[in-house]
């Protein structure tokens, strides 16, 4: 799965879960200041993804470092490299 495909999948999850405008979803957008998502929203997102993909995400320390949407993309790109089953599930 390419980086672009992962980003597209992540964006679709954001649109579905938070009803955000797809045009708003660019890497430089700050999660809280620009999109209004705080750590609890991210935890909700992670719990949803965890249920969906069966991969433990909530305890991942990297989540705490997320500031921009670009950080979210990087998090999942890295996860897809480390856990091939995640990338496979993301495609479904």
């Amino acid at each position, binding site marked *: 799965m390419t980086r672009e495909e992962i980003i597209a999948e992540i964006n679709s999850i954001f649109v579905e*879960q938070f009803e955000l405008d797809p045009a708003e979803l660019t890497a430089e957008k700050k999660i*809280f200041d620009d999109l*209004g*998502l705080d750590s*609890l*929203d991210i935890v*909700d997102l992670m719990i949803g993804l965890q249920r969906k993909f069966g991969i433990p995400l909530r305890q991942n320390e990297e989540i705490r470092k997320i500031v921009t949407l670009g950080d979210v993309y990087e998090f999942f790109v890295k996860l897809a490299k480390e856990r091939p089953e995640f990338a496979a599930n993301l495609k479904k």
Partner: protein
Amino acid sequence: MTMAQWRPTPLIYTSMLLWTVGYCAVMLLPFCVASLLPEEARGRFSRWVILQYGRVMVYRAVWPFVRVKFEDGAAGETRPGIYVFNHRSASDPFLVATLNIPVIQAVNGWPMRLPFFGFFARRGGYIDTTKLSYEEARDRMGRMLERGVSVAAFPEGTRSGSRRMNQFRSGVFKAARELGAVIYPCCIVGNEELPDRRFRFRCGRIRVRLLPPLAPEEVRSFGNAFLLKNHIRSRIQREIERMEGIASDE
């Protein structure tokens, strides 16, 4: 110099100080007696003392320089719930007293550390969201709601100091969904400079408007806390614009 430009800051602080001293003198004995009561009764009494002090400050100490008007649009709903306010100024926590109901506030740390106010806030069972996990804060809110005590929150977290409204944090909305609580959106307008960021006052009018609440079923109908908080934020924003004459009445 016009009335709008005049800064009665020393007069207001002198008045607040005198009213505070007078209020403390009146309440000293009852407060000492109440200290002997069991914890729950002590907390209830402390909340009443805080509420009455807030009302003295809002309706007496700053009058006639600052006039405060409360507008009840809750459509007869009286259940304890979570009151969500916009947050422009340091006067906002005092303005919660206009609700005139048993209430605690969920605060972000510093009010609990204030020498005088912090003591009463701790006694009254105020919730310091910076010291508790989300689950602990939610459970405390739940216990207060069960006792008939509402929770006031400023989900912007920090005061905007202007007419701009900051993004909302999700904590109280997530808690409201999980607790099945009523949410009362509330608007405060006119106090962005009462006081300003340097704690100076002008003369002015403040309006606090309680909007029709969201019943627990409606609160739970939102897919997650993010969608709920954005809905409430939009409602407050629209009403503020209406109150300030930015948007025309629908």
